[in-house]
């Protein structure tokens, strides 16, 4: 079962604010003209063909009375947890795929559950227990891919099942680019080998698919379209990163450094919380002449303390001469290792540094991210907002209070706690 919140961020904002319901609303990274739209309400989509990725200024040309809101990440994380907890009541195997998508597995049940009835019940419970304005599209299928295709098939508020009796019917109604994972470039390549429709793709032999996709991927498509599960892959954490687009380009080292320090701090705290250390640091700057500065350094010793990482990151930043102002800063920590397995150097007092970083982490855990602040970060709070990536769910547990999202009066626990 694939479950997908419809117009996720925008619908949650309409859930929170009843005065926005039935109106064209978008959530944009920034409410300013150049802000990038992250989500559009179903009204905005219907009225003006507003799409994710559009700039606010373009959207307002299509809908002059468009309501633009900035994202409230904590609210969306809470909604994610509320739906996750609800789904866990139906199956122990619930896999969050992104902030607004889940896959639920119902294999190995003693008696096969009636998934259509369960889906209808989930939809109703979302309205009753999470929010009456929220809708989901649910897709049922023999594997992740087909369940997702079924969920995409009807939006909003859909419920579709692709199974062994109707798959050809569904395939005949889809275009190649409707398939999740097939871009226009893929479509062109497939056209070269005589595949023009999803039915052609299904009927093609493995050799043709390998030619069309350029290798083993073709074989994966052969299996996927026949209901075999080949997308059950768990990826290990390979990096921690953060990125920031500057509304006012940084012209000096001091300006860029204070923002970089904050990015490092954010990524470093997440890395520490998950008990990792890193050996490689990458800094990527986008400049206002549309060129880039990029450098990666790899250290001999594992880096686990935010202070060490800040020092290294600023060392890289100093290599850029600031000929052109910086419009975007991206920073990542890679070459990760679990801190449990670190072998400390005999020559340097890394144990002391490790203990200090743990103490700093504990203070922040108790007093919040800004409970302890480096001097050069004091003036940066205004610059840095808490953003949430659509695909990034690894860090979703940070900060939010679980089981905490509802449109119902749920305050028994508050009454005990507060009065």
């Amino acid at each position, binding site marked *: 079962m694939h479950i997908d919140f419809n117009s996720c961020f925008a619908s949650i904002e309409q859930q929170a604010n009843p*005065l926005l319901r039935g109106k064209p609303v978008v959530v944009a990274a920034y409410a300013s003209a150049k802000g990038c739209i992250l989500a559009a309400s179903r009204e905005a989509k219907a009225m003006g063909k507003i799409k994710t990725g559009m700039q606010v200024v373009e959207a307002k040309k299509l809908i002059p009375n468009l309501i633009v809101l900035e994202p409230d990440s904590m609210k969306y994380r809470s909604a994610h947890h509320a739906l996750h907890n609800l789904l866990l009541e139906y199956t122990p195997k619930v896999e969050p795929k992104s902030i607004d998508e889940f896959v639920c597995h119902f294999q190995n049940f003693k008696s096969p559950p009636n998934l259509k009835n369960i889906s209808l019940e989930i939809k109703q419970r979302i309205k009753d227990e999470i929010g009456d304005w929220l809708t989901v599209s649910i897709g049922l299928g023999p594997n992740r891919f087909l369940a997702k295709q079924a969920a995409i098939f009807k939006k909003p508020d859909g419920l579709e099942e692709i199974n062994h009796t109707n798959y050809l019917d569904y395939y005949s109604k889809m275009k190649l680019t409707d398939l999740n994972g097939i871009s226009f470039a893929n479509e062109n390549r497939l056209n070269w080998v005589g595949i023009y429709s999803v039915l052609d793709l299904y009927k093609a032999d493995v050799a043709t698919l390998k030619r069309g996709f350029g290798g083993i991927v073709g074989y994966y498509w052969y299996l996927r379209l026949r209901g075999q599960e080949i997308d059950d892959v768990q990826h290990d954490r390979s990096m921690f990163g953060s990125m920031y687009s500057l509304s006012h380009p940084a012209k000096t080292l001091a300006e860029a450094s204070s923002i970089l320090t904050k990015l490092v701090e954010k990524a470093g705290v997440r890395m520490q919380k998950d008990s990792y250390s890193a050996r490689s640091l990458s800094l990527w700057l986008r400049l206002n002449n549309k060129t880039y500065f990029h450098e990666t350094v790899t250290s001999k010793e594992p880096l686990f303390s935010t202070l060490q990482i800040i020092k290294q990151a600023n060392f890289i930043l100093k290599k850029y001469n600031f000929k052109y102002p910086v419009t975007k800063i991206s920073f990542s920590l890679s070459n990760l290792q679990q801190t449990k397995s670190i072998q400390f150097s005999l020559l340097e007092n890394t144990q002391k540094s490790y203990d200090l970083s743990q103490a700093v982490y504990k203070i922040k855990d108790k007093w919040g991210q800004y409970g302890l602040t480096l001097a050069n970060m004091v003036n940066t709070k205004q610059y840095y907002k808490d953003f949430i990536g659509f695909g990034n769910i690894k860090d979703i547990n940070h900060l939010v209070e679980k089981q905490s999202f509802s*449109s119902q009066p749920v305050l028994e626990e508050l009454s005990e706690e507060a009065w």
Partner: protein
Amino acid sequence: MLSKINQEVQVDFNRIPRKIYWNNREYEVKKLGLHHKYRVGNDLFHVFSVAGENLFFRLVLDAQALTWNLEEIHDGL
């Protein structure tokens, strides 16, 4: 239009906020849109998104200090 307020206010509370006293006026809460919580370190905050007749209020209750902060209002336009 959304306006950031960020002022401490008085709230009549019975399971959910019922009345908000702000700027020498009393606003009756007609609908709870959403309730969610978040933490800053150990400190717990309850966020109530509520609507009156024609004004939306984002109220935040500091669960330790038991103070209410009116963070923002929106007229729905």
